[in-house]
């Protein structure tokens, strides 16, 4: 009983239901694990100990309730989700003192389902980044190798799940921010279809790309979280009322009946040697289990990095206009003149990467440049969507790597933002098309770093992804526990 934190969400739920332990014990174990691992991992921006223990006690008191399938289960949420009364910074100085007066719909739904939020996890500032190095507050380390980044922007979420701080985490994925850190840390991550999950109360980055989703150590746990948070929301006009499936009870697919398309443009990338070897082996394991693999093509994929960094930056540049030092958040002292107030507040409290993307987005929307950049990118976005639809014809899903390189050492790309943008190429297409994707581990490189694969599905086929992943995770090598962190 001493290591309850090792349990998956499903195992913990079963244990609670069988009264093998209480939520107070489970939550205390999670909090103790956080305390033990944080000095090395640094996954959390805020640990909500008191509040979590109170909620755990209440969960124990209320007893089992079929309407609350996550009752008493500790989870973490990325610091971009508004949690009423708790700090919500999105990793930015400009929101350092911000306490939301309302709750993100997905967080409210998690809590209504009974989940206990134990911590808010670190991320790149405003979810802009691929390594969590752009957090204004702290460094999150990859639990598999503390000298390396956890990926990003949901690096804290992945690190919290892999270092066993909680069985599941809620992250967001605008250009790969769930799938890439999941792959780099060695866990699973699901980016739902755009509109499957409400965006209300999630600090916005690229509004037509942002989507919240779970990270966990099993596909069953992804399904448990998704079934709690998915569905239409009167507060988000872009949330879809497309019928829901029973995500919590996805049955593993029959691999012999599965056909997966391999997008040539992604598989022909320039891979790190260790990653390439792992990917080859994974393909062999899958074909050995009866999966049919066939090459497909996404001809316009080469434009995806440009399309994404134009459109997402454009949306970000105006989404972040509200952080002006007037109503809440950081306000620069000194010169009270209005323009100086704006300029100084934003310059002093926003990081370089955020300011870079604001500049980029402002530029592509400017009069005289709009047609050449924003409009063109929006057109190419539709072409990529058409490619994607066509590639899926005759396939159940597409299968692709998540990253061409494993987790990299801190600072490796500090002087070279464009190279990091290029690294997003594998994950961006799904956000551009709005389709769902699921990243799952495919073992470790000889150097012990996780390698990930991703399944890409048709819009709203999260159930299919969970079923396929449920079968594939039995075939692919598990990354195992990280080295001792405590």
């Amino acid at each position, binding site marked *: 009983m001493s290591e309850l934190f090792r349990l998956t969400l499903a195992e913990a739920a079963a244990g609670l239901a069988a009264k093998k332990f209480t939520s107070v014990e489970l939550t205390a174990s999670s909090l103790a694990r956080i305390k033990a691992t944080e000095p090395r991992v640094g996954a959390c921006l805020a640990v909500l100990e008191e509040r979590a223990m109170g909620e755990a006690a209440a969960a124990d008191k209320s007893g089992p309730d079929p309407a609350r399938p996550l009752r008493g289960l500790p989870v973490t949420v990325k610091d971009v989700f508004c949690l009423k009364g708790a700090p919500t910074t999105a990793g930015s100085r400009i929101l350092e003192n911000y306490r939301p007066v309302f709750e993100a719909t997905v967080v409210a739904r998690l809590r209504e389902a009974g989940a206990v939020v134990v911590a808010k996890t670190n991320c790149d500032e405003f979810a802009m980044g691929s390594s969590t190095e752009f957090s204004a507050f702290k460094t999150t380390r990859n639990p598999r190798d503390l000298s390396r980044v956890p990926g990003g922007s949901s690096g804290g979420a992945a690190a919290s799940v892999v270092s066993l701080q909680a069985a599941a985490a809620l992250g967001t994925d605008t250009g790969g921010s769930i799938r890439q850190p999941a792959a780099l840390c060695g866990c699973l991550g699901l980016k739902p279809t755009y509109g499957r999950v409400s965006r*209300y109360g999630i*600090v916005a980055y690229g509004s037509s790309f942002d989507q919240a989703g779970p990270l966990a150590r099993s596909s069953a746990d992804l399904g448990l979280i998704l079934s709690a948070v998915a569905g239409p929301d009167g507060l988000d006009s872009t949330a879809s009322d497309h019928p829901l499936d029973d995500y919590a009870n996805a049955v593993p697919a029959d691999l012999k009946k599965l056909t997966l398309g391999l997008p040539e443009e992604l598989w022909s990338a320039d891979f790190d040697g260790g990653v390439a070897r792992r990917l080859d082996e994974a393909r062999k394991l899958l074909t050995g289990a009866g999966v049919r693999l066939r090459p497909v093509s996404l001809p316009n994929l080469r434009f995806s990095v440009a399309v994404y960094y134009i459109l997402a930056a454009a*949306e970000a*540049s*105006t989404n*972040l*206009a509200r952080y002006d030092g007037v109503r809440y958040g950081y306000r620069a002292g000194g010169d009270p003149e209005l323009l100086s107030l704006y300029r100084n507040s934003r310059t002093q409290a926003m990081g370089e990467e955020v300011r870079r993307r604001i500049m980029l987005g402002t530029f592509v929307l400017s*009069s005289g440049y709009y047609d050449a950049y924003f409009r063109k990118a929006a057109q190419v976005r539709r072409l990529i969507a058409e490619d994607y639809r066509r590639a899926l014809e005759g396939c159940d899903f597409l299968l692709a790597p998540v990253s061409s390189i494993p987790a990299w050492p801190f600072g490796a790309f500090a002087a070279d933002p464009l190279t990091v943008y290029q690294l997003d190429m594998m994950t961006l297409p799904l956000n551009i098309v709005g389709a769902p994707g699921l990243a799952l581990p495919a073992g470790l490189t000889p150097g012990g770093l996780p390698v990930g694969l991703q399944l890409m599905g048709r819009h709203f086929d999260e159930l299919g992804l969970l079923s396929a992943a449920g079968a594939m995770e039995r075939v692919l090598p598990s990354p195992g526990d990280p080295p001792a962190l405590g």
Partner: protein
Amino acid sequence: MEPVIGLEIHAQLKTRTKLFCSCPTEPGAEPNTLICEVCTGQPGALPRMNGRALELAAKAGLALGCRVNNRSLFSRKNYFYPDLPNGFQTSQLDPPICSGGGLDIEVPGGVKTVRLNRIHLEDDAGKCVHDERRGRTLVDLNRAGTPLVEIVTEPDLSSAGEAVDFLKKLHALLVFLEVTEGRLEEGEFRCDVNVSLKPVGARELGVRGEIKNLNSFRHVGKAVEYEVMRQTALYEKNEPVLQETLHFDPVRLETRTLRTKEEAHDYRYFPQPDLPPVWVGPEIVEAIRLTLPGTVEETRDRLTGLGLRDEQAALLLDRRGALEYFEKTTALFPDPGKAASLMEEFLLPACLKEDLAVADSPLAPEGLARLGELLDKGVLGRRAVQEMFGELFASGRDPEELAREKNLLLVTDRGALSAMAVEVVAAHPEEVAKYRSGQEKIMGFLVGQVMRKSRGAADPKGVARALLEAVGRPEEN
């Protein structure tokens, strides 16, 4: 040179809640009390469409002969200002909710159609309150997110007078349609005016000045007159007119530069990703068309057809809420002429005096209808109404009850009137004799005597009847 004038009118829609959240839209509340996470631009908050605002915009469009676009799109209009919580306004660029349309105005020698370019929906900003004494600026976001329609005309107007006529007519129509409350003093109907000059007959337009944010018809007239004068002077001196944004100073009656072309904002419009395209299907457009009450002209004809005088019809059409009040009253008291005179003579002046909207009158239409009935039955005289109306209006009480309390009900009882008539006849034998000898005018004096006896509470018609009987009675000798 001749002036070319185009207008951009902002009218606040008459909805209970804001355009993208459910905060109320009332004016006059304490600062920052009608706000939520959406209209204050909190991180992660998202807009949701107010369907009623869409309907009202479409309704205005249909009444103005516009095409209602089945699909319209919201865009973000980006600029920084402390009263703009999101750092962008959510407005419609292309396509807007309505396109085309027009409104006729009377001009010397005929009718002129002023074409409309478009009507689009957008949200209002909050307000900055400058505290001069402390040297601070405070922000009130109660108004932020209030739904507006912007009505854009083609440059079809050619004088200050035409501009004012057009605005007055448009204002009356939108108020009549209940699209807007149209309170000018609350800024619920305001406009930007574009003015340029061109040689008479020329097709090409000159460089324009845009006068921002005028909220009185008089100011529009004065601003246009001044701007035409200013631009004419420039042309005469052979100096260029600059494209600029102007502010009208209502005290000095002149326009002043707010921003030059170089300082103009680049609004960086792009489709608002948080709102899917707005769909107003043909069946919805038809349903809205059915709710149109007919034009102002049709309604005026209908009212005069009911026997109202022209001035009365105009009064009901011009005073906000008056027509509605009239219709509620006549539903209970089906004498339109009398109902209209009661409103003209008593109710509307009382509202004006107390500075109340007709809809807020403490005396409900039910009360006024009851008053009409009492007058009709002869239980209450007009003088009594005059005497008690102030109190009746303020209290909103039942008129009969109040009249009884104040002893103003007319004596209609035959026996009582007859007794008083007999007494008066007995007390004035000389006058009675004169009457009998043919001086019928003396009857007026006798009626007056009975009225005096009753302290004005007798029903004059009943008194006359009773006196005739008393006078006609054979002498008792």
